[in-house]
């Protein structure tokens, strides 16, 4: 009885019905692009055109004052790029940025991974609270945080006060060319390890639990499970996090600009800061060329990531 009751309306629904108006593919395409219009407009004006324009500008000697008389600008080919790599400050800034990436990425990942592992193992009671605490730096404003760090790393600041309490005379952190960079990197790491942690946590939660159980039955201890199960299965996540952070740190601007202004003696100046400085000096051609070096680096990193990911999966 019950089955007939359920079946009846279905059969009527299946009986010939006025066929839905057949829309042509052209019409469907037009509708879809209508949906895409708001995004496409912003994309065109603020991403596509600026990217092409930046490439064009980087091949000219355009300066700020030329914006009103664009036809007076000369096409200079790769001249700006040659000048960049002959500019000692640019080479120094490339090396600074590389240092930021080389130290910042592994450090951020290690902290993020360790915390993710700790939060994922056994901890139940405080997991939510701790995750919130560790993620909080990600959402804070960098200008605000940089001021707090300046205050704390001041020669008479809180950090040195703490150091003197345990018997060390604290240095003048942000005015010492050798110490400023570590503090700037530390700020970057503090702001970003929460991102790494969250991504690793998501990765860890996707590892099927029965794999561990099987391994435990076979007598594999915690350490071997970590080495032979967790790490290999997390490889795609690890790769993704490393690329994400590399791309972040390649563009590092806020931290050095706000904490040290690129100083002392240019010891913390990044490529992005160089780009900004050239822009501020009205050297739009040079600035665009410098920005394209960044774009090239970011593209290389992204392409390598996709290759690696594809070969692994």
């Amino acid at each position, binding site marked *: 009885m019950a089955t007939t009751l359920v079946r009846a309306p279905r059969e009527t629904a299946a009986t010939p019905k006025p066929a*839905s108006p057949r829309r042509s*593919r052209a019409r*469907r*395409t037009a*509708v*879809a*692009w209508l*949906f895409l219009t*708001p*995004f496409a407009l*912003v*994309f065109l*004006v*603020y*991403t*596509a055109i*600026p990217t092409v*324009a930046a490439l064009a500008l980087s091949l000219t000697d355009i300066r700020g004052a030329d*914006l009103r008389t664009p036809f007076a600008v000369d096409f200079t080919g790769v001249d700006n790029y040659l000048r960049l790599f002959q500019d000692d400050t640019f080479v120094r800034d490339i090396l600074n940025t590389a240092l930021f990436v080389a130290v910042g990425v592994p450090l951020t990942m290690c902290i993020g991974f360790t915390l993710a592992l*700790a939060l994922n193992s056994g*901890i139940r009671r405080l997991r939510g609270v701790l995750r*919130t*605490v*560790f*993620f*909080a730096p990600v*959402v*804070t*404003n960098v*200008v*605000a*945080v940089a*001021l*707090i*760090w300046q*205050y704390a790393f*001041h020669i*008479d*600041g*809180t950090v040195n*006060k703490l150091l003197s309490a345990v018997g060390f005379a604290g240095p003048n952190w942000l005015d010492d060319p050798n110490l400023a960079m570590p503090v700037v990197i530390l700020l970057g790491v*503090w702001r970003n390890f929460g991102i790494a942690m*969250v*991504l690793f946590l*998501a990765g860890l939660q996707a590892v099927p639990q029965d794999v561990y159980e099987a391994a435990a039955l076979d007598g594999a201890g*915690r350490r071997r499970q970590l080495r032979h199960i967790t790490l290999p299965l997390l490889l795609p996540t690890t790769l*993704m996090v490393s690329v994400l952070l590399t791309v972040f740190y390649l563009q590092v*601007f806020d931290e050095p*600009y*706000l904490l040290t202004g690129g100083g002392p003696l240019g010891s913390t100046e990044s490529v*992005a800061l160089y*780009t*900004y400085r050239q*822009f501020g000096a009205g050297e*739009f051609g040079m600035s*665009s060329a410098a*920005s*394209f070096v960044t*774009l090239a680096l*970011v593209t290389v990193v992204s392409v390598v990531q996709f290759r690696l990911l594809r070969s692994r999966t």
Partner: protein
Amino acid sequence: MSRVSRPLLYAALLLCALLTTLPFAWGVSGSLRSLDEIRSDPGALFPHHLTFGNFTRLFETQGFGRFLVNSVVVALIVVAGNIVAASAAGYALAKLDFAGRKFAFGAVMAAMMVPFTAVFVTQFVITVDLGLADTLTGIALPGAALPLSVFIMRQYALSVPDELLEAARIDGAGEFRIFFRVFLPLAGPAVATITIMSFLNSWNNFIWPLVVAQSMSTYTLPVGLAATSQAAAHVTDYGLLLAGAIVVMLPVLVLFLFLQRYFVQGIAGTGLR
């Protein structure tokens, strides 16, 4: 985890949590100290006399009221723009079959990768050409349709069953009707994530407003704070600056405490598939 090491694990994690929150504590503690107190004992951990004078000075003499209003206006434009642009685009990319779909999705992915430093010079030139330099609209527009928002919405739309939309189509509903009546009411979590992400982006954005805002009347909070800090550099009026830092950070931190699930989802959305 064995029984013995569990307390150790808790202790280590709590220590890490303490280190992570130290800068916040420094900021709050410093903002509640008077100028004299900071001058005589700069590094002290706690204020001897609590004062809210720094906060009142901020709004009475430093124009922070204006910066706050500007930040809110810019954030509203950005969030509204992202909800409209991303829900429509994400829905189309996931659920409509059309010519150029692959190309459009490729453009979204590529847009996520173009570094800001590569385009801000020409973005600025375009903003000047559009007559939007030194306006709040000019500050807001580039962030008003973030590719990340589109991506998040597309991922969400993929999980909505096709049968639902197909049923509405058979009933004769047009695409716009389906979008508004069937899809959007289901998209609450994705809209929440996009709202949070784009708000965060707008509220914390520094370099773009720094480039576009040329007068105090269009400064957003971070730019105003940075300007105040440069002006106050020789006085080292840290109490005032730290109070400013708290004013800039607090709204986001409070929002984060209540809605942290969506913050985390947004970040996880950048990487997971």
